[in-house]
């Protein structure tokens, strides 16, 4: 099994958070011989899925540019993050619209394609629409 190039770990095992909760965790870009990094972006965001065009809302954003041009040692270590989650929008599973929250790590290598890793979580306790709308 090939190791994942980016590991994203949330501190809590339960992926359900409530508004105002603190979301904390860390990510690690797994070092490889030929990996030279330019920057890493971390986002805590919601996005829509379904029939409509995708909308995206970024709650927390951090960009890490390498300061060490020789061996990226500043970026090739576990990096912690934490943010207090907002009151809305809550995670939602509707009929033609879904709202999903996730932590996204985007890695910009000096050469080659971007790398991406996502860790989903739920905000709030709204059940799927079929459960409350009948």
């Amino acid at each position, binding site marked *: 099994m090939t190791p994942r190039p980016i590991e994203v770990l949330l501190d809590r095992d339960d992926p359900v958070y409530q*508004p105002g909760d603190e979301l904390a965790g860390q990510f690690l870009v797994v070092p490889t011989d030929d990996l030279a990094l330019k920057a890493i*972006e971390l*986002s805590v*965001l919601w996005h*829509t899925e*379904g*029939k*409509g*065009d*995708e*909308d*995206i*809302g*970024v*709650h927390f*954003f951090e*960009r890490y540019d390498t300061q060490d041009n020789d061996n990226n040692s500043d970026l090739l270590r576990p990096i912690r993050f934490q943010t207090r989650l*907002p*009151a*809305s*929008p*809550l995670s*939602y599973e*509707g*009929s*033609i*619209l879904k*709202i999903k929250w996730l932590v*996204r790590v*985007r890695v910009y290598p000096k050469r080659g394609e*971007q790398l991406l890793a996502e860790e989903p979580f739920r905000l*709030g*306790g*709204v*059940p799927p*629409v079929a*459960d*409350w*709308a*009948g």
Partner: protein
Amino acid sequence: MLGSVGEALFFGIFLCMGLVAFVVMMVLLVVPEWRANRQFSATQCTVLATSIAESETDDSKVYRPDVKIEYTVAGRKYVTTTYDAVRVYSSGRHHAERAIEKFQVGKQYVCWYDPFNPDQAVLVRGYNAWMYLLLLVPASFIAIGGGGLIYTAWHWGASAERRASLSKQAAKLDVLREKTGGTPLPNVPSPVDAHSSEGTRLAYRLPIATTPGWQLFVIFIMCLFWNGITSVFVVLAVQSHLRGRPEWFLTLFIIPFVLVGLGLIYFLLRELLITTGIGPTRLECSHYPLEPGQECELLLIQAGRLSMNSLIVELACDEQVSYRQGTDTRTETKRVFSQNLFRHEGFAIDPAAPFEHQWSLVIPELAMHSFKSPNNEVKWKLVVEGDVANWPNFRREYPLIVVPTGTLADAPAAEAAR
């Protein structure tokens, strides 16, 4: 990537065209006029001759006034043919004729010469408003091209998250801080309309989704526009029949347009009857915005002189999404929740005594809150439907704002603190 290059090229060409046209207009028109008004020196000149210069364009002639003058600067005589600073031709010969009528050969007039180049002089000064309006053309090219290039550069190489993050910082969130005790509610629509309108018996009067007057006005304009154009072709078709040489193709071609026009007239009359014949519907509530599981009092007031077959109030939640398909933007709405709150049948409403009914409303405890983003929405609303005897039925919608559970908990404390 290719798309971005294409976009950049497109907007770049637009910008270049605008800049070139702008510079040319500035150099040939604006700067000479400005210099003549601000920098030229006055002196006396003698008119030697007047004439009208002609130039031919593709399909017509254009004219400009020419006045030959003689004047002296620093002891040296100059002879030049001039009129104003920009020396442009125009299509009306009479304008040029009127211009040279003011100058008689042999007489002296004031002229203004260029102190840096005394060869150049003008007899008429002033600013041409049309020329400055014309500058809007290259300016719009520059705005579109420049704006497009900035937009392309903004999107070039930046991730969607980074762009969204920068946009969020740029635009402060307009959220329900006041009513929610300072808790910001991103992507929940603001209930500002209801807050600004107090109810007569309950705290808030709910705003209607579309004001009947505006709806009527829009339909009226559409009706006028459509039928105005169609009537031109109808007159042509009727005239051909009256002349005895009927235009059958035109006659058949305009039939569907006439039918649509008649449909619009029917719709306009129907809306007119509803707006004028059915009194206003008011909905008032004791709390606003609402939370899932929270109970609030609701009051319906229906005015007018009406014989009602039925009056229904429904609580509804819709998902509304829009998506692009080719060059079209389509909108789809799906009703995910619907509950009949009230139904009353077979009754009359008198203008002196509007119909009133008050009852309790509870948003389902586990329901989703109102949500709005550019392409996706969760919309709560109250729908009032009236079936009126011998009159068109009506339907009026009142948006409700539902906030996430627990958001309003701090509101009383916050209000007290204020």
